[in-house]
């Protein structure tokens, strides 16, 4: 029997992306043809929308855009490719495969994303298929790394409690597998898979969870293991907080409706934190996630994409509604939430020993960019390590890298390679720099309004001078910069944050919670570097002088009256 997922009717006309998805025959569109069209290295907008669901999209080198336009050349089109790694875990062989394709087809760098995925830039259309095939050969994929589906599932890479990590990571993987799209389009387009005959395709067989229209918007899941909130669990559409009792995993608190993105000038859009609605046992987690996703599938706004994230679906109806709807769909009720306590959301750098006797080394990677610089052969060093490393690699949610599960026998060899290539755990940097994140922005991101990754290091250089003067070099302060308000670097959770408005101009935000439990607040609009430094200097000095015992910068600026505390995303713009 044919079974079609019928969505409840909604006001407003469906957005163009809904049309594209509905006409796409489960994410196929005309991608096969347009990827081969020889007159342009780009693909049409409609296909690019679908391409996202395959983990890639078309970008162009914006540094060259105007120059090439004058030269009567199309933009320097290239594809960004994102490779899923649930919980950020990859084997040495997979690391070498990523390094290989980035150098062979990409621009010779890898970006470790804020969602623990691999990202590469600069891949030409003609190389895309071979690129995906090599990724596939390494038992990885790009499917659903972008698009209106569940994205890469984040998970605390916890190097301390080895058994707990193994168990929690196992659940993250299960979620990732279960929530992956089922369409055969990915195999057909990239892996020369057989085309399934159209008439036999039904939602039930093809996409039993998503249906032909997939979700109204992206959906993000992250799993935190207290006391570490490195995954920023409250920024997720669905956040899971592992509850440990007597050293054993007993289940997860369920938090719903977080998200960072907003649109400048539209106060109906806002960042929001996920709210805890209950608890379930580990074996119930997949079912809970599935039902929550179907609620968003059925009720999420399909007319205006900027209002389509789960947070708006919930905020429009209230938390009680979502709990009721969820319990109905489950046929049973969530338990009452359990106690938990977060202490920080950053990474602990350097060597630590796991409970099973293996060693883990957390490497500081500025902005998550793995590349060889003249004075810092990071990419080469990691390649050499991967060649002999018998454990795994873990991408941290803060864009750092953990060389994980190093056996005591192997440790000395790894130490030597780290020293030989001068790889750093960041201890010689300021604590501010070690707590920093930046999205990609220029020149490849089409949404960027201002620089982020290319700019942050030099801004930090200047801030460090002030911090040194104020005696705050070793004080951890979460600082984040995003080139646009979509917020890939989760800027609304920065104690200090910048969101791009125009080249060289940022909105400045202050006052987020140190453990990722409070949004920040707009402090100044549309300012440049000179003003940024002039504003921060007295704040840093005041903080150095007047802070209370253990008081974090984000809390201090509120107590000192510089910004109001944001209680909910709904008052973010007040």
């Amino acid at each position: 029997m044919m079974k079609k997922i019928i969505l409840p009717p909604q006001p407003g006309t469906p957005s163009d992306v809904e049309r594209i998805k509905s006409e796409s025959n489960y994410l196929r569109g005309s991608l096969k043809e347009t990827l081969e069209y020889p007159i342009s290295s780009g693909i049409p907008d409609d296909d690019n929308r679908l391409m996202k669901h395959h983990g890639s999209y078309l970008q162009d080198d914006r540094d060259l855009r105007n120059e090439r336009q004058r030269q009567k050349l199309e933009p320097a089109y290239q594809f960004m490719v994102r490779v899923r790694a649930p919980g950020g875990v990859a084997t040495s062989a997979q690391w070498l495969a990523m390094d290989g394709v980035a150098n062979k087809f990409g621009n010779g760098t890898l970006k470790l994303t804020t969602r623990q995925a691999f990202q590469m830039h600069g891949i030409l259309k003609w190389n895309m298929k071979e690129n995906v095939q090599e990724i596939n050969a390494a038992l990885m994929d790009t499917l659903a790394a972008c698009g209106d589906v569940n994205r890469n599932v984040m998970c605390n890479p916890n190097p301390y409690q080895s058994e707990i990590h193994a168990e929690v990571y196992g659940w993250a993987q299960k979620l990732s597998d279960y929530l992956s799209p089922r369409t055969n389009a990915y195999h057909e387009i990239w892996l020369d898979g057989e085309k399934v005959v159209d008439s036999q395709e039904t939602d039930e067989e093809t996409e039993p969870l998503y249906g032909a229209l997939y979700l109204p918007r992206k959906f993000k899941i992250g799993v935190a293991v207290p006391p570490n909130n490195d995954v920023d669990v409250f920024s997720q559409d669905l956040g899971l907080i592992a509850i440990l009792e007597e050293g054993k995993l007993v289940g997860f608190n369920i938090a719903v409706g977080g998200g960072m993105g907003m649109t400048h000038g539209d106060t109906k859009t806002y960042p929001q934190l996920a709210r805890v609605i209950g608890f379930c046992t580990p074996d119930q987690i997949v079912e809970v996630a599935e039902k929550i996703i179907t609620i968003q599938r059925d009720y999420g706004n399909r007319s205006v994409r900027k209002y389509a994230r789960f947070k708006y679906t919930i905020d429009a109806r209230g938390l009680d509604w979502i709990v009721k709807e969820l319990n109905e769909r489950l046929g049973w009720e969530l338990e009452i939430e359990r106690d938990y306590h977060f202490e920080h959301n950053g990474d602990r750098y350097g060597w630590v020993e796991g409970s099973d006797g293996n060693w883990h080394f957390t490497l500081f990677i500025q902005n998550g960019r793995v590349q060889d610089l003249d004075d810092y052969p990071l990419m080469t060093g990691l390649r050499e390590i991967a060649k002999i490393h018998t454990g795994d690699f873990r991408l941290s949610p803060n864009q750092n890298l953990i060389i994980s599960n190093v056996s005591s026998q192997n440790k000395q060899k790894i130490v030597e390679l780290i020293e030989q290539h001068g790889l750093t755990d960041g201890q010689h940097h300021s604590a501010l720099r070690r707590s920093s994140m930046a999205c990609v922005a220029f020149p490849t991101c089409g949404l960027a309004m201002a620089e982020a990754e290319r700019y942050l290091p030099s801004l930090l250089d200047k801030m460090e001078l002030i911090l040194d003067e104020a005696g705050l070099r070793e004080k951890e302060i979460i600082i984040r910069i995003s080139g646009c308000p979509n917020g890939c670097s989760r800027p609304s959770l920065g104690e200090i944050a910048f969101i791009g408005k125009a080249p060289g101009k940022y909105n400045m935000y202050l006052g987020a919670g140190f453990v990722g439990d409070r949004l920040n607040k707009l402090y100044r609009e549309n300012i440049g570097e000179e003003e940024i430094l002039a504003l921060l200097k007295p704040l840093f000095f005041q903080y150095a002088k007047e802070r209370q015992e253990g008081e974090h910068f984000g809390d201090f600026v509120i107590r000192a009256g510089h910004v109001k505390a944001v209680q909910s995303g709904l008052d973010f713009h007040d």
Partner: protein
Amino acid sequence: MALQVINSPFNQEQVELLNQLLPILTETQQIWLGGYLSASQSTTHSVASGGVAVLEAPATQLEVSSKEVTILYGSQTGNGQALAEKLTKNLRAEEYLVSLSSMNEFKPNALKKIDNLLLIVSTHGEGDPPDNALPFYEFLTSKRAPKLENLQFSVLSLGDSSYEFFCQTGKQFDDRLLELGAKQLSLRVDCDLDYDESAAEWFTNVLAKLNEQQGSSSITVQQPGNKVIEEQLEYSRTNPFKAEILENLNLNGRGSNKETRHLELSLEGSNLEFEPGDSLGIYPENNTELVDALIAEMSWNPSEAVKVNKQGELKPLREALISNFEITVLTKPLLQKAAQFTANNELKALLEPESEQECRNYLYGRDLLDLVRDFAPWEVSVSDFVAILRKIPARLYSIASSSKANPDEVHLTIGTVRYEAHGRDRVGVCSDECAVRAQPGDYLPVYVQRNSNFKLPADPNTPLIMIGPGTGIAPFRSFLEEREEIGAEGKTWLFFGDQHFVTDFLYQVEWQQWLKEGVLTRMDVAFSRDTKDKVYVQHRMIENSQAIFKWLEEGAVLYVCGDEKHMAADVHATLEKILEEEGEMSSKEASDYLADMQQQKRYQRDVY
């Protein structure tokens, strides 16, 4: 200059009569006479008794306000585009003929032909136009922007008032259009982020104004203007026109091994006419560094006067070497003449009959500076030495534009020649000048070289197959511009090739646009250095053998432009192969078929 029998088509008696009359005519009389003579030439019936020419005046026209409206948008985020689409829908509902496009898809030279223009444009960053408005913006704000007295317009600008330069781009367009003489149809409206209401208000105003004009059926009587009689100067190869450079850019993207210049020259006031397929001659100047090195080598005095032509015109040596003489090419006759001025026996030995091959080797890739360095000591006066030099020849380039599409302009596609030979970096004289020295605002001496062997078919329905790798693409740009302009309906198929897709796809966005519009029906490309095995245009032809043969059988005209030695020969061989295979012809039949096509002017080549 007085008329003489030798410099005019008149006989002695006519010359004398004219020389009596001409010096006493006032300027107005001269202009009138010029007009009279050319008018009576072109309109045999218009000479009334008494010999007074009646210039045909345009008939008095009754003109109803146009229902045609052009809407252009410059949009970064899509808001502007959405508004433009909505406005289009509204106006069409009122039966206006609306043409809608983004600013970068609009050919700005069409502005002059438009009556009603509605602009919707946003502002970004620090008062910058959106990316897709940039070429149009640059055109309009440049000195090339035409007077637009017949244009009515209105601007809707989008912006964000939290920025310093709120709606800057819209304001600039508004001001500039007024400055160019255009009239505001309705006032500009500046919109903030919440633009819906202000945009709707602007929509209403614009529509009301347009309707008002329709309603009052504003019948305007156009007064015949005074026909300006232009000075008839004949520019030619011997009297080149100094054409101003309007644009000079490199078509190759960063990282290319090549440099191909796109030049736009002004022919305004030249009366030079050309058709697609014609070439433009440019008289180049020699590189001053080479000239100075030569002068230094010979210890000449750069300001010594030397004769530059048979008439005995004198110029300082340096100037003469720059503009009048060829110094970058060596010839055997030149060596022979030079041999008398040197005591160096090696030169004489090189000229012996048995050293012929050696001499040829020597000539290849060397210039005058090599000659004077290699065969010193010289015993010769400057004037005797320059007397053996050839005049610098003009360089011919296939014209890359249609004068219908770009009136008063001519565009060229010039591959820059640079190479290293015999221990020195060398450059092509003219291409180097165009690449390095010729800047917008400078002038180049040019003339039109007709090429009747490379012409579009008279019938616009005839299919065209065009094969033009590298700079061979130039005439096909003019073909398509022309075909677009005349609304030709015949199919067109272009083969292009170069080294790399990313950097060397010359005029890429123009072909894309023409493919989209259907002016270009098919295009196949070969980029030789993007793949392991080198692919060239002939490989793409073989892949499409069947279709090519079909097109030929349907009467397509086939054009080849570009490199003669390799490409044109390979293409010719490929055509024979296609005919043999697809047309089941013997090799004799195939070559007869091509010869026959050539005979019928259906196989035309412009190769070099």
